[in-house]
């Protein structure tokens, strides 16, 4: 049976899916919607990442600044305490029996701090008494008259202190670790120069004492460098005593020139600042992006640099909640597009069916009426 021009043996077929103008418009809508949400997702993620990196750099800057001030104050405090201690009669008397006990008392009173030794040197520059927690390699009877702190002390007044060039013990319990001497002159009862009282501050301990509790992650590294760029303290002991320019100068990595330029700027201006830099990772021999902040540590006339560095992966651990929100939003929008499309297909096909049935009934009724009229 056939009604009008409708062919037998077939089902009512709509226009082929991809030829249908409506479907083409709908495909364009899906393409635009998904592309838009994809771009927004990447854009928002990128923005959040940049903002997060900026925040971490800011935090590191605060940590570096706070650490630098703490180190400065600790050294000042140590110096001030030494100047007072150097005026005690137990010290000025150079008594063979009393002085060692006084030194022991001094070292014990610094327990739990980075001060690890106290040394008394006589006016000839010969080490007379040593008290330390571990052997630092210093020996009694050694002549140290050529040291910067001894030469300074010979011309210094009572109540003054001096921070000497950090030393790298080659022997003893602190081998390979920078030990900074803080010295003050000792004057005898006649106000004559009698010697020098020196205490040693372990820079590694000093850095970890103040900065470790503030670290952003376990992989946050802290470095202390002298004005020429030589590492005084570093997580990798092999770096201590090495110049940063020479160390990185041997390596090739993208952005090296920019990094060197920024470093030189830092060492010229002696201010504080931030780096977002890709550097070769010494342990894994791969490139890692680091967020670094530095602050000057003013010690006497010198300006050291305290650098706090965190790998970007650790910083982006805080990206999790943002990322989850963006992913959820993206998935929800994609499902809304799918749900809307499903609804559209249903509405469209039901409308098509109803239109067909209504058209068929109208044609049938019209034909019946014509037949009736003709008869």
């Amino acid at each position: 049976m056939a009604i009008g021009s409708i062919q037998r043996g077939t089902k009512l077929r709509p226009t082929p899916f991809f030829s249908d103008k409506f479907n083409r418009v709908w495909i364009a809508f899906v393409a635009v919607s998904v592309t838009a949400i994809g771009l927004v997702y990447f854009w928002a993620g990128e923005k959040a990442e940049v903002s997060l990196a900026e925040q971490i750099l800011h935090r590191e800057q605060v940590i570096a600044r706070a650490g630098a001030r703490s180190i400065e104050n600790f050294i000042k405090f140590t110096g001030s305490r030494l100047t007072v201690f150097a005026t005690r009669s137990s010290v000025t008397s150079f008594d063979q029996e009393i002085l060692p006990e006084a030194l022991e008392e001094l070292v014990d009173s610094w327990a739990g701090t980075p001060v690890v030794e106290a040394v008394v040197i006589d006016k000839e520059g010969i080490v007379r008494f040593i008290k330390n927690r571990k052997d630092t390699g210093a020996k009694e009877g050694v002549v140290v008259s050529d040291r910067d702190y001894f030469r300074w002390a010979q011309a210094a007044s009572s109540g003054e202190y001096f921070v000497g060039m950090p030393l790298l013990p080659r022997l003893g319990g602190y081998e390979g670790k920078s030990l900074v001497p803080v010295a003050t002159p000792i004057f005898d009862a006649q106000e004559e120069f009698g010697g020098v009282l020196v205490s040693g501050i372990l820079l590694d301990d000093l850095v970890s004492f103040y900065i470790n509790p503030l670290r952003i992650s376990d992989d946050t590294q802290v470095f202390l460098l002298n004005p020429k760029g030589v590492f005084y303290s570093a997580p990798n002991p092999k770096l201590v005593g090495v110049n940063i320019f020479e160390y990185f100068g041997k390596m090739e990595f993208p952005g090296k020139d920019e990094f060197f330029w920024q470093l030189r700027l830092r060492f010229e201006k002696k201010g504080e600042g931030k780096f977002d830099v890709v550097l070769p990772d010494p342990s894994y021999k791969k490139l890692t992006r680091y967020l670094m902040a530095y602050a000057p540590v003013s010690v006497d006339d010198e300006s050291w640099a305290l650098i706090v560095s965190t790998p970007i992966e650790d910083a982006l651990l805080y990206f999790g909640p943002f990322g989850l929100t963006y992913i959820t939003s993206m998935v929800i929008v994609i499902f809304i597009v799918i749900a809307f499309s499903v609804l559209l297909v249903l509405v469209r096909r039901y409308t098509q069916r109803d239109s067909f049935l209504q058209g068929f009934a109208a044609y049938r009724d019209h034909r019946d009426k014509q037949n009736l009229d003709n008869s």
Partner: protein
Amino acid sequence: MSKLKELFVGPDHHLHHIETIKLIFRGLIPIVLVVGGIVLMTLRLSVWGLVLGIPMIIIGVVFLIYTYDAVVSERILPFSDKFVNCSVCGKLTPLSPATDPQDAICATCKADIENGLRSPK
């Protein structure tokens, strides 16, 4: 026999199984594309996310709806060669899929019933 069973286990069992398998693949592939695209984008690999992730989702969504449209058309659009008498007025009307021929109602009667002019038998 239920309508669902009728759809999958018709008189020609073999052909229905093939159609079912085809349908599963036609539905599964776009879903894999959409999910794969979303996963690729969540990896936050900017270039691959943009170059592969977004097109995968677009193609997945389009083919998912294409498959859905094919299934819906199969179940909704009426047969053009199967005509039965309307259960209300007795006039000829096309038979829609999943409709019992004895319960078929033509569009005119359906409109009349909806407007309260007639009542179904």
